[in-house]
């Protein structure tokens, strides 16, 4: 027999991926919106990557900032969450291996949390209260990604 609080939280377990999408998506968008809308800020990001020994820093900055921004929007919308999570796992593995190599834990923590948050979303998918779920409910033809 389950207790009332446990039953309540089990009934609303579908909120978990939604909350995770909200916080990971917000962090990704918050951290990159100035880079993708201002070339000056993009060059600053490229300089940061160059200082950390990143190969092709400007190309890396553009690809990384835009992929984080677009994947953040996809997380928030709850659409193509698993492909977006896979892209973010590659992005943050590269960030941890190259840009944050040798950093103390507090400095690498945000990238580490984004990596694990994306990995969680890769397993859970978008969950309910997402565009993928709405499309699935409408078509009932394929499992939401």
């Amino acid at each position: 027999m389950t207790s009332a609080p446990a039953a309540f939280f089990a009934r609303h377990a579908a909120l978990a991926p939604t909350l995770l999408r909200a916080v990971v998506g917000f962090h990704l968008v918050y951290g990159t919106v100035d880079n993708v809308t201002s070339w000056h800020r993009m060059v600053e990001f490229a300089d940061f990557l160059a200082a950390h020994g990143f190969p092709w820093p400007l190309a890396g900055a553009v690809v990384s900032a835009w992929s984080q921004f677009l994947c953040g929007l996809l997380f928030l919308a709850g659409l193509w969450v698993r492909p977006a999570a896979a892209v973010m796992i590659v992005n943050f593995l590269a960030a941890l291996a190259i840009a944050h190599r040798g950093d103390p834990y507090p400095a690498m923590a945000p990238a580490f949390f984004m990596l694990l948050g994306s990995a969680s979303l890769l397993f859970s998918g978008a969950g309910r209260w997402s565009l993928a779920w709405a499309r699935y409910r409408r078509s009932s033809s394929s499992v939401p990604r």
Partner: protein
Amino acid sequence: MSLLGNILWLIFGGFLSGLGYLLGGLFLCLTIVGIPFGLQSMRLGVATFAPFGKEVVEVRQSGSFLRILFDVLWILLFGWEIAVLHLAHAAILAITIVGIPFAIQHVKLIPLSLLPFERELRARRR
């Protein structure tokens, strides 16, 4: 130059965009719990009427817990949809070449539409 840009902007869709923000904001204010979001939507509407000659800056009290919390709620409920619309408009206008100055204004409005409690549009300093 900014005045001419703003007049053309208003004629070619800026007025309707701003009006959409204002009406959306008014509707949110009617729900009472949506008043903080409604006020931000109206502020966005006013900014959308005349974006030429202005720049996006961080608000002075940025980073407070309440502002971040409201921004998370905003971005999850309304922000990403508005940002995608601005991005799509910017892409379409940029393709036309003559629409590039207007595309730049749409790109400028993206941070504002995503983080309205953290960013604001101010007259550019000369």
